[in-house]
């Protein structure tokens, strides 16, 4: 069986996931809506997952994919809890603008 990377090249995957990751970072910094921020985080996670899978193929090893499973589990948990927190914040503050969340102030 031929390694698919022979035709695509690992570097392309690296560039792709780098760009996706940067888009995620950009979203986090750019938007004030907490939901969108969350989505950006998901994009970042997916960028990393993609890289994992690419390298799994590169090394011909299953461990990369196993990690993706775990990261998915964590992401799912995170999203569930995070959104629940957002809901309760929204309930209390009436908005989910992250600039309004300043109670961490020292």
């Amino acid at each position: 069986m031929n390694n698919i990377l022979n035709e695509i090249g690992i570097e392309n995957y690296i560039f792709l996931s780098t760009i996706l990751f940067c888009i995620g970072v950009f979203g986090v910094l750019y938007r004030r809506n907490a939901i969108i921020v969350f989505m950006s985080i998901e994009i970042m996670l997916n960028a990393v997952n993609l890289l994992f899978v690419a390298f799994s193929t590169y090394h011909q090893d299953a461990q990369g994919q196993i990690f993706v499973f775990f990261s998915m589990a964590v992401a799912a948990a995170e999203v569930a809890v995070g959104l629940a927190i957002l809901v309760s914040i929204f309930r209390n503050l009436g908005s989910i603008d992250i600039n309004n969340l300043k109670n961490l102030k020292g």
Partner: protein
Amino acid sequence: MNTNLALLLLLAPFLGFLFNVFFGKSIGKTTSGVIGTLAVFTSFLASAYFFAVIVANPEGIQISLFDWIQISNFKVDFGFLLDQLSILWLLFVTGIGALIHMYSISYMHDDENMHKYFAYLNLFIFFMITLVIGSNLLVLFIGWEGVGLCSYLLIGFWHKNQEFNDAAKKAFIMNRIGDLGLLIGIFIIGSLFSTLDYATLKTAIAGATDLNMYWISAAAFALFIGACGKSAQIPLYTWLPDAMAGPTPVSALIHAATMVTAGIFMITRLNFVFDLAPDVQNIIAIVGAVTSLVAATIALVQTDIKKVLAYSTVSQLGLMFLALGLGAYEVAVFHVITHAFFKACLFLGSGSVIHALHGEQDMRKMGGLKKVMTITFVTFLISSLAISGIPPFSGFFSKDEILMVAFEHNKILWFISSLASLMTAFYMFRLLYLTFFKEFRGTAEQKSHLHESPALITFPLIVLAILATLGGLISLPTNSWLNEYLAPLFTKVATEEHHFGTTEYALMLVAVIGGLVGIGIAYAKYIKQNQVPAEDAAITGFTKVLYDKYYVDEIYDFLFVKSINGLSKFFRDYVETTLTSLVFGLGQVTNEIGFQGKKIQNGSIGRYLFAFVLGMCAIVIYLFLAQ
């Protein structure tokens, strides 16, 4: 036997002290006085025994009790040395001490704290004995500081009067200045010779081949400063006149007869050190002569009877130092003894007068006491003649010897000291005339109470007057028992026997004439012309300067007390606050940094995220790109 007896000698007054401290109040005034007197008398008897021993066998008795202080290169033990010098001192300290104790029983009878008085007096005798019989400089130092303490306690005996307390404090601190000198001297001697023991020191110096003269002179000078403090020499003499604030018997005992001679004792003790330092000896002689003159001039115009006697004491001590400085230790010792007799007698006599006048000390308010207080008058007269150097009283012999020694060495010193003796004769008889002759100038009420003092007071006076008369016999110019007795102490061959030629007789004559002239002037002024010293406000001109003691107290006050207090205030108000604010300042800086730093933590998640991303970039750059 000797050890036990020496301990008895030492501890008898101490036991008297303890007894009076703990039980004095309950056993009654007279009993406590009697116990105090007996304690000192016991010591006197023990001293007499030792005197007999030492006359029979001139070898000194050395007793060592236990190790006291350990220094790297030597040990100081707590020991006694009973030799000619210490026994001589013991005899007159305990003898006069016993007499004055006896006198005090009557004198202090009205005081509610009489047991305390006797306790202090006993303690003083205890420390004086320690000072005298210690076998090394540090034991001497115990006594040295101890007598200073007792002096402090007794000057401030009437502690409700803050002026008296000031005087007491002044005496203690002035003494301590001297004590520092003594300590420094001890340090130098300790490091030079690795011993503080007199006997060892003497052999060490005698056996040494290359002595460090510079340091020996330094030691001698430091020791001399110590002696200055205790024996009230320039520049540390101002405490002694103030010390007259204490009860009169105390002035007699401590500030005339015994404690103030401690400096002379110490220098005589260490004569072998001082002999090596001729420069210091010269200083001692000059200081002594100048002190005697300055004090005598001040005494000329004082009106307080005790002040006159106090300055007279300073003056006489100056003469003794003059003798010490000229290397005539035995002459100084001789004068110490005769001076102890007549000065104690004078003080006790003035005490008797003050007692009769219920505390009046101003001579301008006395007069005419001759008729009422005959015994006091006669004893006072004898002592005055003695101090003025009129033959055949004891003072004549001792003072004459000093003048003779001075003449041999330096004519100027002789002139100064002769002048001082002339003045002495004048102010003593001024005192005598103003107090005992003419009419009584006090209030009528005082006059009605005038009386001769009781026997307990007059008895010591009589004894002392007899001693003041006969005291000269121990060292006649041609046949000196004292010189022979003291001979083992001195390294130098005992001062060559005076060849009694014309010069000597002429000097003697000059001295006597000087004394008589002084008396004559006083007679002319106060008997013939019937003068009475002016009131304080009316004193003017140079007399005023003398009356105010050359303003030395004021100068000292300005130079030292004021400046040090000013410095203290400056330190307290400025330096301390500056230091404090410096420390607080450090805290404030930290606080400020925290406060500014707080502003970064404004809680905005957006900004935190920026910081986070930039930080991550920085880390990545550092880790992967910086190499």
